[in-house]
């Protein structure tokens, strides 16, 4: 098993002929991800990745011809909302949108279309997901992973790499690592991913990497108490020292009034019995303290 991506993933790459799309498609394929199709309007009939992957003009043609069930989107912000809707319209059920700087109101319009199609969107502005040893979709570096049973979910990009590297260095492998993105409007929340981990028999502990802004961490804490009280879980929150009212890079990372502060999040997580690490490098030790062993 694993969640979101795995051996059953048949991946379409939207924007495969662009600079980003080409580079990351190579990386994903090299990792062993089963890339079955690329898509760029007007480049249908060409091939990508040294002739191994057919390119289509439309998602529906790509799905029809290759049975793609998952897509990853590397198209610019102006076209990304349409790309998401095209993917779900073609019957793709798992969509990763890597694109950043998509206007929030565009995402408000896209979400009901995704939901009506019964699809799952991860992102936008997310690094994707890797199930170590199985498949990697997105832009997470391949080298940081180790196969194992810890599920990692994060709103961040490089901070996730830092944490995953720390886990791997400590011999603590991962089932799946998921970056959900730092934008205000995202397709999958912490809780959406936690639900998947709950249902995954190969995930036995969870690391949640949050940051200031919004209340996703607080809601996750409540959800953990109600749904997976016995699952070992450790968290990290970035932005303990961030000043209020300033957007810390991510559009979502802003403390407004009393809402969204690291203190509020840490208090909620600890109240749910989730240990909160003070540094990413402390996470492996905290996991060991609650009984999670290296593998």
């Amino acid at each position, binding site marked *: 098993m694993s969640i979101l991506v795995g051996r059953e993933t048949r991946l379409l790459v939207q924007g495969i002929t662009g600079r980003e799309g080409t580079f990351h498609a190579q990386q994903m394929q090299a990792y062993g991800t089963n890339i079955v199709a690329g898509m760029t309007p007007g480049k249908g009939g060409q091939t990508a990745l040294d002739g191994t992957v057919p390119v289509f003009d439309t998602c529906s043609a790509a799905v029809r011809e290759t049975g793609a069930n998952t897509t990853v989107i590397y198209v610019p912000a*102006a076209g990304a909302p349409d790309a998401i809707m095209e993917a779900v319209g073609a019957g793709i059920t798992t969509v990763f949108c890597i694109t950043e700087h998509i206007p*929030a*109101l*565009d995402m408000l319009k896209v979400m009901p279309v995704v939901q009506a199609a019964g699809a799952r969107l991860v992102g936008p502005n997310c690094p994707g997901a890797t199930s170590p040893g199985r498949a990697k979709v997105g832009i997470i570096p391949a080298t940081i992973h180790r196969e194992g049973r810890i599920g990692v979910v994060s709103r961040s990009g490089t901070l996730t*790499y830092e944490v995953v590297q720390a886990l791997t260095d400590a011999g603590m492998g991962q089932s799946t690592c998921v970056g959900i993105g730092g934008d205000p409007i995202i397709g999958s929340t912490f809780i959406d991913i936690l639900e998947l981990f709950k249902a995954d028999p190969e995930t036995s502990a969870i690391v949640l990497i949050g940051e200031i802004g919004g*209340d996703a961490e607080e809601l996750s804490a409540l959800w953990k108490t109600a749904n997976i009280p016995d699952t070992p879980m450790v968290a990290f929150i970035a932005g*303990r020292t961030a000043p209020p009212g*300033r957007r810390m890079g991510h*559009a979502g990372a802003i403390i407004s009034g009393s809402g969204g502060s690291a203190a509020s999040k840490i208090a909620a997580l600890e109240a749910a019995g989730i240990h909160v690490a003070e540094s990413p490098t402390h996470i492996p030790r905290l996991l060991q303290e609650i009984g999670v062993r290296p593998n």
Partner: protein
Amino acid sequence: MKIQEADAKSLLAAQGLPVPPWTVARDPAAARRAAERLFAEGADAVVIKAQVLVGGRGKAGGVKLAKDAAEAEAVASRILGMDIKGITVVKVLVAPAADIVKEFYLACVLDRAARRVLFMGSAEGGVEIEQVAHSDPDAIRTIHAHPHLGLLDFQARWLGFELGLGAHLKEFVAIAKGLYATMIANDADLVEINPLAIVRERAADGTVSEHLQCLDAKVTLDDSALDRHPGLEALRDLDEEDPVDVQARHEGLSFIRLEGDIGCMVNGAGLAMTTMDLVKRAGGQPANFLDIGGGAKSDKVAVAMGLILSDPSVKAILVNIFGGIARGDEVARGLVEARAEQKRVVPLVVRIVGTNADLAAEVLRGVPGIEAASSLDDAVEKAVAAAKAAA
């Protein structure tokens, strides 16, 4: 992006919302002239309001009434130059003082969790909505606009009735829908009218009537959407922006100046915040938040270094790069170039891991004044120590 009250009012007026006339004055004489015009048009009094992008200007003394033009000039000269939460007031808005019957609060805002536009209204207007939320949460009525069809007529009516605005329902519905239209037309994250007020107006023939008016407005724009609204970039208030912030934005860097002495250069917002947090935890004080972004090239790194060093309080710099899209050797080259060009030399602690970290190490090997660090904790400790040594 935050914009000033006057610009927010322009955006509302462009959607047909009832906003009383206003003038922006940058000196007391201009404020006096604006007041003279308003008194000539029949105003009983004018209000002079500091134009700053921070809240609480009323409490700080930045909003005052004046009964005549001379008083308006005097009030304006007191407000101009005032410091409000670290911002020096350089302009004031002059508007007729309204004869307020009752004040309301009305806003639409991006609701992340619900993935909808949320309308919030309260019959307790004129005060901070956070305060109402705290003291009397039931006084706030909320409704989500339809994600595709916007605020539906019945939703606007419902909100109007809930606020006790049945007698002004048609006006209210038009204003609520206008708020949504303002949000959509400008890709705003927030459009707030506080107060929305029932004001008493005396016509030339002496008859008195009551209408709804938008007396104050706040609009925040979605930075990700500014590209498709070229006109809105002009509303950015450079008066209140640190020139360094302006430069950072032009370079596509996410930069926030802070009070400390340890400059930070990191790729990724979450990791940049974490680096700041760890500096503080180790007893240091970060001088900035700086995310150089995903695919930063060497020239961008050099610019980032310049931004950090433009702050004279910076005593040491911590570079923390987890190569993914960013390639470690590119960053390393940028650091070496920057170091070669910069006038002021401060200790530089560098930690580069991930993609091409080995090449980066080669580039940096033997460059004077650069201290390599292996782990994040190690890098932070070294940077804090370096800053303390330099102090």
